């Protein structure tokens, strides 16, 4: 029997309904994901190492419990912070207004200053999926335009779980992917990726723990 566990992807599920949390948890676990389920956007931000109103820089602390999250799946309709609000907070980590330089320059500059609590990829690269019981096209578009990777209609089905993996893999650091594509045949691609990600992830995690 193989002793080494396959690297599992960790999904953060956010829903204010206990029932729906149980459901999404079961769906995700059945699909071999590791799951952390929370009941609000603010709890989700805590898990991600971002407190409301703070940027990722101020969340730096050696004692901080780091949990690596590979995907966030959140309900849209929640009291307080909606799923859309949470999406925006994740995608737009930095709250510095009125800076008129190009966004990519800015990102690269700022990226070199901040410690990422997500190891190999920065927080805003974490794919976010939004769930809703209501099929409102304008809502769906708003979410997708806001950076959500997918929009699931509730109740979420087992078949929807397949739609998560491609986004998780894209969210991983880009340096890893070409390497894996070279060394594995298409039929073993996913398995090989899973096996190789684990040590890679660890190495990249360590190298990101420096503040210039």
């Amino acid at each position, binding site marked *: 029997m193989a002793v080494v566990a396959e690297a599992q992807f960790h999904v953060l599920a956010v829903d204010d*309904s*206990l*029932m*729906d949390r*149980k*459901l999404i948890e*079961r*769906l995700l*676990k*059945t699909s071999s994901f590791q799951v952390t389920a929370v009941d609000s956007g603010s709890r989700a931000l805590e898990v991600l190492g971002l407190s409301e109103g703070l940027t990722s820089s101020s969340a730096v602390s050696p004692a901080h419990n780091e949990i690596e999250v590979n995907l966030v799946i959140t309900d849209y*309709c929640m009291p307080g912070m909606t799923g859309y609000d949470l999406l925006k907070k994740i995608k737009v980590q930095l709250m510095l207004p009125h800076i008129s330089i190009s966004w990519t320059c800015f990102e690269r500059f700022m990226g070199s200053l901040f410690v990422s609590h997500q190891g190999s990829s920065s927080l805003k690269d974490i794919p976010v999926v939004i769930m809703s*019981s209501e099929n409102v096209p304008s809502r769906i578009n708003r979410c997708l335009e806001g950076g959500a990777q997918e929009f699931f209609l*509730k*109740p979420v*089905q*087992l078949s929807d779980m397949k739609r998560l993996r491609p986004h998780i893999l894209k969210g991983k650091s880009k340096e890893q992917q070409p390497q894996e594509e070279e060394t594995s045949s298409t039929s073993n691609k996913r398995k090989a990726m899973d096996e190789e990600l684990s040590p890679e992830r660890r190495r990249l995690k360590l190298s990101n723990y420096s503040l210039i």
Partner: protein
Amino acid sequence: MPLMALRERLNVLVNSMFLEGLLDQQFRQLQMLQDASSPGFVAEVITLFCEDSERMLTELTKLLDQAVVDYQKVDAYVHQLKGSSSSVGAQNVKLACIQFKQFCEENNKEGCLSALNMVKHQYYSLRSKFDTMLQLEQRIQAYDSEQQN
């Protein structure tokens, strides 16, 4: 009662619930998610659904009892109830909630009161069958754990 007979009884009950429209395909999804690693999953979800629903029905009754009805709050609870019933596969309850939402949007108190009664009726019919289902499940689980010892 032997295990086979218990299982048969449970199947007949669940099938009749599908035929009567009490349950829809979402319930089948829940059944698919139950396995050896999570044998009590369906029972857990059903229990949560019942607790949630009864709490909301109580709140809705209170809200509609007011002289001036706060339709926003009513709508919020109906929305939640519709969501949970949809998640568990409680078709008739969900349909009754959809009707309820309509009346709510129209701020129609009489409509809301009659819709609430309908939701209650559907919910309690479902609830009694769920109770029987859970009892059968428990007896089946007891057999399985006996056999493991």
